[in-house]
């Protein structure tokens, strides 16, 4: 090759390697194919009568209510705060009156419900370019507007603590959970606000902001030109889209360190706060699941009552409505429940409260399993399943080994970690990497477990015990 052509060749290589985002391959995991993927169309959700903020959406939160029942509220008016961190406020997504404080077991507050007056009268907040603001000002604005809870902190997945300096911030802008919304579709026209949000977050950390994008479709350009972030593309089965896995691969959390995470549409809302000086509670929610007639994307408001969204779309029968996805979501009542604060996904599947005769020995053409002992794996490997909530067995002791490892792409021994939690061995829990995991990371372990061990429940208990040991 002539000399000048060689140098152009090397120039080409160097340039493309700088502009091409790194693709990180995730080998372990499991993609669960289900019926009821949302079609890529938008619909404006009907206005609901009530909107709620649910303390249950946040880990280890003890709420204290601010207004009294029937007090008027505007968009952005604080309605409750964290008893142990009073600067963390939660604000109303609509204007109207405080209608109801729903309580559950032992008088725990599960929902704070606002009756909507349809006017969307809003509080005013600080408006400005984050480049011109100090960290303090930015933090104050986020706290006052009630958007601070959008920032979660690892370990423990609690709401971020303002006095902790995170070593980095992670945003995963794609979701690999079953039936998850397609964020390339959702965020397509939100890039400017997203960039504003990134700029805000950039002021909160001295480290980097890592943006995880879908590596399965490298030609998609949404969010590719966001500045101030380190873009990495991840390719692999679920849980490749989980922020916890991305943290583990790029900037793992060691004892004493803290990483903050923010969901993509929350980044947009934060950006809008600083750009417009107002809390814009609009959000796109994918309504999915085998029990939904023509699943689609709803443009709605955070905390909306779920009933208007299900009207005319949910099929008859005993259904489970989940705010979130089937691996990480809260069950909500179809008539009275409200969608979660940061949830951009609703899944409706059939309840599995039926007996099946000799179910455990049946060939199982319609059953889904990570083991290969069902005919469905062999005959119809590309089948989309109609999964229900049946346990498919009873709870047993730990017997099979190697099941969890196949679906957890982390250098962690999940069974040993769970056993350390069960005997409350704090040192061992730390050594085995409990700081790096959250329920959504271990959700697939719970799904595949032959012994039906309540993995995520045990993990949450362990995180709770650890936090009270560490932080008193």
């Amino acid at each position, binding site marked *: 090759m002539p000399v000048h052509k060689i140098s152009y060749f090397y120039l080409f290589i160097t340039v493309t390697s700088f502009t091409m985002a790194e693709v990180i391959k995730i080998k372990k995991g499991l993609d669960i194919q289900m019926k009821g993927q949302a079609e890529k169309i938008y619909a404006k959700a009907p206005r609901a009568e009530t909107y709620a903020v649910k303390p249950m959406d946040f880990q280890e939160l003890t709420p204290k209510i601010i207004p009294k029942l029937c007090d008027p509220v505007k968009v952005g008016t604080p309605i409750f705060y964290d008893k142990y961190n009073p600067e963390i406020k939660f604000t109303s997504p609509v204007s109207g009156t405080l209608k109801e404080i729903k309580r559950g077991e032992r008088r725990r507050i599960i929902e704070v419900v606002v009756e909507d007056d349809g006017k969307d009268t809003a509080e005013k907040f600080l408006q400005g370019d984050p480049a011109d603001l100090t960290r303090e000002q930015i933090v104050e604005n986020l706290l006052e507007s009630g958007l601070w809870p959008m920032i979660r902190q690892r370990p423990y997945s609690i709401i971020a603590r303002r006095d902790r300096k995170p070593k980095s911030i992670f945003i995963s802008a794609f979701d690999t959970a*079953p039936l998850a919304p397609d964020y390339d579709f959702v965020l397509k026209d939100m890039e400017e606000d997203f960039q504003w949000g990134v700029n805000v977050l950039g002021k909160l950390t001295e480290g980097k902001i890592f943006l995880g994008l879908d590596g399965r479709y490298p030609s998609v350009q949404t969010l590719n030109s966001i500045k101030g972030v380190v873009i990495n593309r991840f390719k692999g089965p679920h849980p490749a889209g989980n922020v916890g896995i991305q943290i583990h691969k790029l900037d793992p959390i*060691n*004892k004493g360190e803290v990483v903050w995470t923010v969901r993509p549409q929350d980044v947009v809302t934060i950006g809008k706060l600083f750009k417009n000086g107002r809390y814009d509670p609009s959000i796109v929610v994918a309504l999915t699941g085998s029990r939904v007639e023509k699943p689609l994307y709803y443009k709605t408001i955070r905390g909306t009552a779920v009933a208007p969204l299900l009207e005319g779309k949910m099929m008859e029968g005993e259904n*489970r409505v*989940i705010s*979130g996805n*089937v*691996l990480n*979501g*809260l069950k909500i009542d179809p008539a009275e429940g409200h969608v979660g604060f940061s949830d951009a996904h609703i*899944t409706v*599947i059939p*309840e*599995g409260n*039926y*007996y099946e*005769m*000799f*179910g*455990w*020995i049946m060939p199982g053409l319609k*059953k*889904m*399993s*990570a*083991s*290969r*002992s*069902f005919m469905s794996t062999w005959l119809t490997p590309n089948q989309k399943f109609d*999964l229900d*909530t*049946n*346990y*498919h*067995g*009873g*709870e*047993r*002791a*730990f*017997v099979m*080994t*190697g099941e969890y*490892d196949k679906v957890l792409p982390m*250098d*962690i*021994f999940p*069974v*040993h970690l769970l056993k350390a939690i069960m005997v409350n061995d704090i040192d061992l829990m730390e*050594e*085995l*990497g409990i700081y790096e995991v959250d329920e*959504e990371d271990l*959700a697939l372990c*719970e*799904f595949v477990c*032959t*012994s*039906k061990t309540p993995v*995520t429940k045990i993990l949450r208990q362990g995180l709770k015990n650890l936090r009270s040991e560490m932080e008193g």
Partner: protein
Amino acid sequence: MNSLRKFVTKIKVPFEKGGKLYMFKSTFEAFETFLFVPDKVTTGRVHIRDANDMKRTMIFVVIAMVPALLFGIWNAGFHHFQAMGEDAGFWQMVWFGFKRIFPIIVVSYVVGLGIEFAFAQMRGHEVNEGFLVTGMLIPLVMPVDVPLWMVAVATAFAVIIGKEVFGGTGMNILNPALTARAFLFFAYPSWMSGDKVWISGLTDGTGVVDGYSGATILGQAALDHSQFVNGLGEVYTAWDMFLGTIPGSIGETSTLAILLGAMILILTGVGSWKIMLSVFAGGTVMGLLLNAFAVNAFMAIPFWQHLLLGGFAFGAVFMATDPVSAAQTERGKWIYGFLIGLLAILIRVLNPAYPEGVMLAILLMNVFAPLIDHYVIRGSVKRRLKRAKVQAI
């Protein structure tokens, strides 16, 4: 189906707490869940579950053992008639073997499940399905003429001492089926070794062809024979060893049938191929080493023959792979399996008291498995701590 379900729901009532038949609740539930997968639904953040459960997993292990069982049934008949010098048709042989082996299976399951039901009731738990597999494994490692009362005692010992005192299924350190066999081996050695017990009718002696020897191939090797013959003096071929037309414990002779079972276990994802492969690898390595330094006939047995003889293949596929007593980390499984293969052949060849070393090698490695796992985990922990130090700098 619906009427049966309604019937079961109705008769369930007295078994609940406070009811008259409460002390049989675990037993009732065992039968109920045998008939019906329960209607329990998920609570918590994970809303769906894999369709596979413990029952199904265990049943597939039993299915994988069926080829070895069927062959063993025929083989028992085949050798019996050979020893008696009588001609017999295929189905005659099968019927004979069935008559001798089926009672052993029944005793194993009845005694074992009875004890398991009792313990489950005492603890207030559901009956665990672990014994579905152990109950089939125990007969397959017995000599065909073993007295039934011995099977009962050994099963009781294995279930109570080998499993329940540790906390039941999932908590045991040793493989329960091997515990049963080891118990019999040390308590009643004349019934578990020698050259009469492996072929039905030899211990009794009536009608046996003159000069017929029921010695296994390994038994002959231990006597420093360099050629291995059957009872009638005919030399065994490698095909005999692979197919399994040799004397031995009920299920261990046919390498072919065992490999079929191995395929079932691996294809359905139930058995660990890592353990199976590493056991064979360890055995091969030790076999080669012994061949290299051979000073007697036993050491000179070609390494590949070792893999076909005795309980090696059966141990590798069905015993070493018991997930509870094996190493539980993926890396640990390689080490565990390899050491089993290595030690089994070593014990077999160099120890004059035991012509069969697989059982002891597996039991020994069962004891060491937690240690292997411990060091594998320490490795991961060290990596994590090192990373933390590097970050801090």
